[in-house]
């Protein structure tokens, strides 16, 4: 069985229909969250930090936070929201009485998570651009990284969600996986200045590191060979996890 994109799009549109009704409720926190981080850490903490990674602290922080916004947008969608649709709303049971197949459900949900990530990350980008923290036009190169980051965290989250028996385990996912990533994946301080070469190699496993490095390179206008590896990591890990999730979604939806 392969994905039928028209059917996947119908799944995507179900979520879009629901989201449209409450978009302003969702957009507003999106808008304020980056402002709070930038003011508190960028301006507050930044006042005591003259330089970080060779630039003013707030400028160092801004591209990383764009990726964090994309990560959060995708993650909420493929964890709590998918679980609710699967278990409480039984939305997938209804879809599977129609020509929609499990693969289409997965593709539609991932596509929707990427959309949510793009809305989150895009809003964040607009805020920092308005604050003069995104050097235009070259920082625009960071915009396509937002859906890529969304894809990566949609793949990770959906693979996790399909294999857990209860909703309670999502708190582990957020506290023991996403929070450490947020704190230790190059967003707040440059890993390469704090870790030994051996540990730096280990740190390459951290998923958030890759979109952050790409976004920061775009903001700086400093391409480097390692960025190819970042793109390969994002696409490769996403593909592997989605292949695994495909088996999971069939197992959960059919018997």
């Amino acid at each position: 069985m392969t994905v039928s994109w028209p059917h996947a799009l119908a799944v995507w549109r179900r979520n879009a229909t629901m989201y449209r009704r409450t978009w302003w409720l969702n957009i507003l926190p999106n808008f304020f969250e980056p402002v709070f981080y930038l003011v508190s850490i960028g301006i507050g903490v930044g006042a005591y930090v003259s330089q970080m990674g060779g630039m003013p602290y707030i400028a160092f922080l801004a591209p990383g936070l764009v990726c964090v916004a994309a990560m959060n947008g995708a993650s909420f969608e493929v964890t709590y929201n998918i679980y609710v649709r699967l278990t409480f709303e039984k939305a997938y049971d209804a879809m599977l009485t129609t020509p929609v197949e499990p693969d289409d459900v997965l593709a539609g949900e991932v596509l929707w998570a990427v959309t949510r990530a793009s809305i989150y990350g895009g809003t964040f980008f607009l805020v920092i651009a308005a604050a003069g923290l995104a050097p235009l036009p070259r920082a625009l190169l960071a915009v396509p990284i937002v859906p890529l980051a969304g894809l990566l965290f949609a793949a990770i989250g959906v693979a996790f969600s399909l294999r857990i028996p209860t909703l309670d385990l999502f708190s582990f996912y957020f506290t023991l996986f996403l929070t450490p990533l947020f704190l230790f994946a190059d967003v707040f301080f440059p890993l390469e200045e704090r870790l030994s070469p051996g540990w730096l190699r280990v740190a390459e496993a951290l998923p958030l590191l890759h979109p952050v490095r790409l976004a920061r390179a775009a903001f700086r206008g400093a391409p480097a060979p390692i960025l190819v590896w970042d793109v390969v990591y994002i696409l490769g890990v996403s593909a592997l996890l989605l292949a695994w999730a495909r088996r999971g979604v069939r197992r959960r939806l059919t018997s």
Partner: protein
Amino acid sequence: MIVELANVAKHFGTRVAVDHLDLAVPAGICFGLLGPNGAGKTTTLRMIYGVTRPTTGSVRVFGLDVTHESRAVRARIGVTLQENVLIDAISPVENLRVFGRYHLLREPALSRRIDEVLDFLELRSHASVPVKSLSGGFRRRLAVALSLMNEPELLVLDEPTTGLDPAVRLALWSRVRALQARGTTVLLTTHYMDEAQRLCDRVAIIAGGRVVADASPDALIRQHLAAEAVEVDCTRDEETSLVRTLRPRAQLRVGGRVILFADDVAALVAEIRRSHGDHGRLVVRPANLEDVFLALTGTSLEGS
């Protein structure tokens, strides 16, 4: 045949949900699957629309192998699940629009079809209010409306009227008959005997994952019992003597009560009146499917 199951079994681990089931549903009829909860009805339906794969045997719908062509099969069938799956926050019209897109309906056909099903199931008056504010009967009708979006050739209804009040049940039955009149084949499960007897041209009684009888309701009653039933309270000794003298076609015992079946019960009634007097709460009534189920399986259909 619209639906054909041949020697189908379904095991979940060590549990046998369906056990060598044979079923054939001809075009244009209303076919009822009867059985107590846990008899394998829902599993059988899920195999028919291709969400559950049979462990052994073959399931063909419209002549297609469901296991390999589930997408093509589901494009031509409508399924109303036992539990309504509606989106509470949005209106019936929006629910129908979301569902129609699963069938790849596009404007203007989508809106036209929404109008048709709104009229057909009389949902127009509340078409634009959030679903969460609707009554149980309205929600059920909307659930049926969703499954009609693709103008199905086969409509599958899993316990369509469970938990509904009598007026809503009557309304839904009339809709099922109207669909049948237009040529739609209907396959439903129920544990309501009146529903099966009124709606179904043919019923299959399922118990323990097997079909134990399969015919029209009248034929089942004729084959296994007789046209009329006489119920009376009596002891086992009295039953033995009644059966010996009156030779009914069949008899059933339910607690302290005996049901005797005969095509002409006048003689039975006269004899019981003579031997029992006015005691025993004598009732004469037509034999029904509940009696057939009791006779065939030894258990009550309502699962009491």
